[in-house]
């Protein structure tokens, strides 16, 4: 198993800790899902729809069944249980059911002795399609009389936020603008892959790179018509996730083929398939209106936001809720009117990606703050300081903020960040790198800032739980702590943190993290920046219970008074002690804990008001860019960030999250966009879909603030998502400042920069 880890020396919480899987990962020994293998293995392949929308008249699989090496060819009628699946609502057919709704939708699956045979057999499946007119524009999908994409209707959710006397037009100044954000691909390097095999009890085991093993299991059991206890999901080695592994990809197809053939089946998508094999970040169209007094006090915000959900729901309704809840950013504003629409189209489905709705709206609310600052003649950071949310303030969703709210501190720390070196003349560092054939005559520098806000843990009253089991047993060389949970290690470092917590709570050297699978209860998803607080909290709770039981044994064995645990001994106040190893002779101590965060409630459906979020994360970025204004090329020369993480259990890993998350925001700002043409992905490769390289990404200056959350375990706030939320908007602001023109379209492309410069002077930013 990928996650089998050798005991390594990992410190307790608060210290930089190396990964327990680090040695395996640098040595090439770590087994990712795509490395899995079993004897007698068959290979699966998927036939996908070439049409954005079509009726299926007939599917003829006879030719494929005759193809050399083929063991099974399955269509929707071979699904023994529920014919649909989905994370929030089961609205997507397991395989196309009478109609295809996006290019790339799975239509049939094949298992064969060799991958080449499986892929060749796909060409022998004859599908008689009747193409239909697709709906590819979300605005037209919302229009009255629009063609209905799905029996459940085109509207996935209309999220309403109403606060104060909405509709007011007070305030001295008003800025209005429309912003668009493109579709971002998670672009995890590990491709979708799974291995499934029948088990002796008539069930199935699926090894999959999933963010949430138990959610996969529930969906698998429903469609396989198996009792849930006969379905085991093992978290296989994950090559990055970023939201793309919340929904099922190949798991269910792999399991269906294994059930049909009675043999192990492996599936691995190609990179091209991967672009339609998982959901993307929703593209957004955002109309904003901000009003403020001449003194720079925000009075009212209105926004109307449309998210293209694609053909199936995935997490669209929740993304819409988040986009609405955080549409005003980390600012106090009395009058708020926000409408978010998540809409179905015949585009590939969109869903979770790091930031989950808060990332898109940050481009909008931060650009608005900059335009407002320009209108008012106030420094953009000063305007943010004047309107920053503070402890005791009420958020746009009506929640009173408790604990330290670090927004003003973030602003102050950004303002005092040391300036980067002056423009460098190195050709390599010029915008466009060595591809820039000028001598840098057209290069101008700009500085931009952005602040972001998001809740951590699941939202809108979700009863979020995580389970962990801790066993303390006598090992050959002394006591051993075993930690088990189903938390998915996607690279973020939850494996390290679990070991650190057990080290700290039980003060023992040897902590072994067991593989993550469904033989323990759900840890919830490695999403929503929640896993350290939730599974970390469960490990802590279990350790505390184990320690209590150990102390009870020590008292039975004669120790009295207040007991402490240190260096593999239980100490009593008078200096007497007993070895933990000796206390474990009568047997191991085990405890399984289920951790819950404080209770939250659903938001009012009419107003979006309530106590819907556990707590909030705040972040800010400063970007410094060099822009070749004539060629439209951008080099981010410096990226700095300030983030309140509550408490950094593993500071090195927190920095890693901040650096990597900032890179994904930079990518969205400048280069990353899944481009669609009539629902067809035009750039389904790493040649055409660009992500930041070592040449594009500056070193990140990270300032980590630690203001403990009053409710969460150890006071941690999430760390994973905020860096991706505000880094992109800061980069865009810096480019705008450099060229003196607004850039409302993200990603910012060279042609936008050149066109903005050529536009009339009336559009000029006054900053």
């Amino acid at each position, binding site marked *: 198993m990928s996650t089998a880890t050798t005991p390594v020396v990992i410190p307790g919480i608060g210290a*930089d800790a*190396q*990964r327990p*899987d*680090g*040695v395996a*990962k*640098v*040595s*090439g*020994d*770590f*087994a*990712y899902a*795509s*490395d899995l293998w079993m004897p007698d293995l068959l290979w699966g392949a998927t036939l996908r729809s070439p049409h954005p929308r079509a009726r299926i008249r007939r599917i003829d699989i006879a030719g494929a069944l005759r193809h050399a090496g083929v063991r099974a060819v399955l269509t929707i009628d071979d699904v023994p249980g529920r014919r649909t699946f989905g994370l929030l609502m089961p609205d997507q057919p397991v395989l196309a059911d009478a109609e295809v709704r996006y290019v790339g939708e799975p239509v049939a699956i094949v298992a064969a002795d060799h991958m080449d045979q499986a892929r060749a057999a796909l060409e022998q499946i004859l599908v008689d399609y009747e193409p239909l007119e697709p709906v590819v524009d979300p605005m037209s999908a919302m229009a009255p009389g629009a063609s209905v994409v799905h029996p459940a209707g085109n509207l996935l959710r209309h999220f309403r936020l109403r606060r104060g006397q909405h509709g007011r037009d007070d305030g001295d100044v008003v800025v209005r603008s429309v912003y668009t954000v493109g579709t971002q691909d*998670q*672009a*995890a*390097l*590990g*491709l979708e892959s799974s291995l499934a095999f029948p088990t002796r009890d008539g069930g199935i085991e699926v090894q999959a790179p999933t963010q949430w093993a138990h959610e996969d299991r529930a969906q698998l059991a429903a469609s396989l018509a198996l009792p849930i206890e006969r379905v085991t999901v093992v978290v296989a080695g*994950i*090559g*990055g*996730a*970023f939201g793309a592994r919340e929904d099922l990809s190949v798991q269910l197809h792999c399991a269906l083929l294994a059930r049909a053939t009675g043999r192990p089946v492996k599936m691995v998508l*190609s*990179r091209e398939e991967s672009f339609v094999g998982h959901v993307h970040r929703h593209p957004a169209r955002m109309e904003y209106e901000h009003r403020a007094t001449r003194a720079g006090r925000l009075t009212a915000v209105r926004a109307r936001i449309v998210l293209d959900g694609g053909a199936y729901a995935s997490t669209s309704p929740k993304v819409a809720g988040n986009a609405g809840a955080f549409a005003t950013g980390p600012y106090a504003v009395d009058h708020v009117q926000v409408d978010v629409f998540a809409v179905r189209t015949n585009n590939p489905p969109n869903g979770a990606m790091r930031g989950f709705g808060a990332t898109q709206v940050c481009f909008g609310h931060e650009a608005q703050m900059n335009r407002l600052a320009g209108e008012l003649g106030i420094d953009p950071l000063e305007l943010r300081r004047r309107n920053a949310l503070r402890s005791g303030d009420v958020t746009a969703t009506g929640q009173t903020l408790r604990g330290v709210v670090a927004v003003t501190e973030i602003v102050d720390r950004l303002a005092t960040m040391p300036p980067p070196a002056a423009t460098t003349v*190195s050709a*390599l*560092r010029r915008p466009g790198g060595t591809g820039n054939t000028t001598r840098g005559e057209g290069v101008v520098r700009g500085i931009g800032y952005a602040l972001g806000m998001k809740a951590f843990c699941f939202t809108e009253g979700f009863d979020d739980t995580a389970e962990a089991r801790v066993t303390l047993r006598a090992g050959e060389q002394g006591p051993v702590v075993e930690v088990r949970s189903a938390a998915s290690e*996607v*690279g*973020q*470092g939850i494996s390290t943190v679990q070991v650190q917590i057990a080290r700290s709570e039980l003060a023992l050297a040897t902590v072994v993290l067991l593989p993550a699978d469904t033989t323990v209860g759900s840890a919830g998803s490695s999403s929503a920046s929640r896993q350290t607080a939730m599974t970390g909290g469960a490990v802590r709770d279990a350790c505390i219970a184990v320690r209590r039981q150990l102390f009870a044994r020590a008292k039975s064995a004669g120790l009295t008074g207040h007991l402490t645990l240190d260096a593999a001994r239980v100490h009593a106040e008078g200096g007497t002690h007993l070895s933990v190893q000796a206390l474990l002779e009568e047997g191991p101590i085990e405890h399984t804990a289920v951790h819950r965060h404080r209770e939250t409630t659903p938001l009012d459906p009419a107003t979006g008001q309530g106590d819907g979020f556990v707590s909030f994360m705040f972040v800010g970025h400063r970007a410094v860019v060099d822009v070749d204004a004539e060629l439209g090329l951008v080099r981010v020369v410096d990226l700095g960030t300030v983030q309140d993480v509550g408490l950094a259990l593993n500071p*090195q*890993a927190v*920095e*890693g999250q901040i*650096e*990597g*998350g*900032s*890179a*994904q925001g930079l990518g969205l700002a400048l280069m990353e966009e899944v481009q669609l043409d009539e629902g067809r992905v035009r750039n389904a*490769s*790493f*040649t055409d879909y660009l*992500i*930041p*390289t*070592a*040449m594009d*990404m500056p*070193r*990140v200056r990270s300032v980590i603030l630690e203001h403990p959350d009053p409710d969460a375990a150890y006071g941690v706030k999430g760390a994973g998502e905020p860096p991706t939320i505000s880094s992109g908007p800061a980069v865009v602001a810096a480019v705008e400042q450099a060229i003196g023109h607004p850039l409302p379209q993200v990603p910012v492309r060279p042609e936008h920069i050149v066109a903005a410069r050529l536009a009339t002077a009336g559009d000029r930013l006054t900053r």
Partner: protein
Amino acid sequence: MTFQVTVNGRRRTVTAGGAASLLDVLRDDLHLPGTKGACEEGECGSCTVWLDGEVVCACLVLAVQAADRDVVTIEGIGGDGRHPVQEELIRTGGIQCGFCTPGIVMAAADLLHRDAEPDEDVIREALAGNLCRCTGYTKVLDAVQAAGRRMRGQGLDA
């Protein structure tokens, strides 16, 4: 066709179809899955190996092109121990999901064998063909610089 290739110092006999890539042969026939595939077109660098001492993307090399040549993969780079780049990636935290790590180790080790004191721009250029989605590269750069120091015998914190 059947041919011989030296992989990590061992002479191996391989039978592969004409269209098979070196990556296919390493992973599927020689059971060396440490070399990763993520893009199949030489863009991501996950499959970086050394062919006669030169850095190549194994997905772009036909297997037969490796006939009678010398291949070093992630499984062979450290000999019996670990290469300084591997040690430093662990120490600096330049690994998250780790999928790009084998390729980065091979590219960085190649650089440091040519130039043990590269400046940051040189490291960035050497790693420009290795995509990493998790780290943002900051700690990877730290690791390569520290490995260079270690190789120059100046100690870790020099």
